[in-house]
């Protein structure tokens, strides 16, 4: 009785072990894919210009832009960057009739688009350089 069970179970064990390994590899694959979720050839997004490993806080390579996006140091923003030079609620990017506008929310250190400080609201064009705190982004609009 035991011998038969053991003979059957040895195949079961191998199947289970390989399914286990496979499911973990799948999870890791999804995890790696999740690091760059934005395909670089479509939509509107902010692209990081700084080299990622020069910044001492977590920042992604790409940030997709929706209709209304807040950027700041606080956790309730859509784009959270823990840079000490960025205010809690730093800026807002709004979409209005297929045009994107950047609004500075009275941040302490200001927002610069192509080197000029944003006083109130400014329209964004494809290829604009946005700098906030120590971070610099490229605005990409492919629509």
């Amino acid at each position, binding site marked *: 009785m035991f011998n038969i069970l053991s003979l059957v179970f*040895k195949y079961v064990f*191998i199947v289970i072990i390989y399914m*286990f390994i496979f*499911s*973990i590899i799948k*999870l*890791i694959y*999804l995890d790696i894919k999740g690091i760059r979720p934005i395909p670089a050839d479509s939509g509107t997004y902010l692209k990081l210009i700084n080299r990622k490993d020069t910044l001492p806080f977590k920042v992604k390579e790409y940030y997709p832009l929706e209709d209304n996006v807040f950027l700041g140091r606080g956790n309730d923003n859509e784009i959270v960057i823990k840079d000490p030079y960025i205010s809690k609620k730093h800026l807002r990017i709004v979409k209005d009739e297929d045009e994107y506008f950047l609004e500075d929310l009275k941040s302490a250190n200001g927002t610069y688009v192509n080197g000029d400080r944003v006083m109130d609201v400014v329209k964004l064009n494809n290829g604009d350089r946005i700098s906030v705190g120590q971070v610099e982004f490229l605005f990409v609009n492919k629509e």
Partner: protein
Amino acid sequence: MLNRGVNYKIPRNLLFLFESIALFLMFMYYRNALDRSTIIYGLSLIFIIYISNLILSKIVSGDNYIFLIVTMLASIGIIMIYRINYEQGFKQIIWISLGIVLFFATYFIVKRIKGWEKLFLYYCLASVFLFLATLLLGRRFKGAINWISIGGISFQPTEIIKILAILMIASYYTNYDRFKEKKWGRYYLIGIMYLFVFFLFLQRDLGSVLIFCSLFLALQYIYDENRKLVLANIVVLMFSGLLGYVIFPHVRIRFETWINPWKYIDTIGYQITQSLFAISEGGFFGTGLGLGHPDFIPEVSKDFIFSAICEEMGILTGIGVIMLFMILVYRGFKISINQRNKFFRIVALGISILFGIQSFIIFGGVINMIPLTGITIPFVSYGGSSMLSSFIALGILQVASEELDIEED
């Protein structure tokens, strides 16, 4: 992110299924000698592992895979040990449970306390103290002095020193700029490592010498700015390897049995040839649990557990175990790359290298690919010290996998 909870269930449940079937089979195998406490211990181990994985996936923000992989490895190991030796299996259940408790304890302690990178001197002193204690109080066990027993509990200090050494190397390279200013600051670490290797030579624990040397060499290769020193170190280690071959007769024996084990099949080559027979006996799918003869191999539950796994559960399972180690080491490297805190970055790298080197040396040894040195497979082999220290190392790795804020305002 939404289907995250669903995804993690699959490997966890597979692990649970594997353990349940294997335990059931083991109870069938020992059906005449079964008592109630064994059943309770076995079932509670399955429960502990399942619950720990569940809790871990809820509370930690870091890596969720390493603990899963390790519990799978430990489960394969415990089933095999339990089948080989009833009492050892029973003890191993306790070691694994203690290991998991220590894992969580290490996780919370290391995470809560700051300033681990400043304790360079203390890591050194603790290691040297443990080495001296081993030499003075230790007892000789198969040619090597590496056990000390205090009040009936015996343990291997080298297992703890491995972790201390990683922390020490990491704290040294984190504060490298400060050490560089001192006159001999560049040579502090290399001096201390040679001291460690010297102590290990005195203990004649050559497996550990190999582990320490490769660990140190790997981290030095990555972090040391002085490239000539790295090269000099490699030359010195090669030379001392040759010296070891000339001085110690049991190194020569290991080397000769590696070149041609069949010539010494009755004496010194017995162990390795039995291991090779066992692996070939198993074939791809193995003989089935309880149907092979892994007990022909001396020391089967410690160094040669891999041969026993190959014999009874098949080479495919053996490959599976190697793959699990590969994923574990890969995750360790990935954790190290993502970590911004330099100290924990080096520690994560060191721990992954430790797991990788250790498993490579023993897998290579039992299949006669490299000369055999008696060390344990982390998480799989029988042995309290090795199990506990591996779980402590894993706890540190778990901390390193999280985002440790260094620029908090």
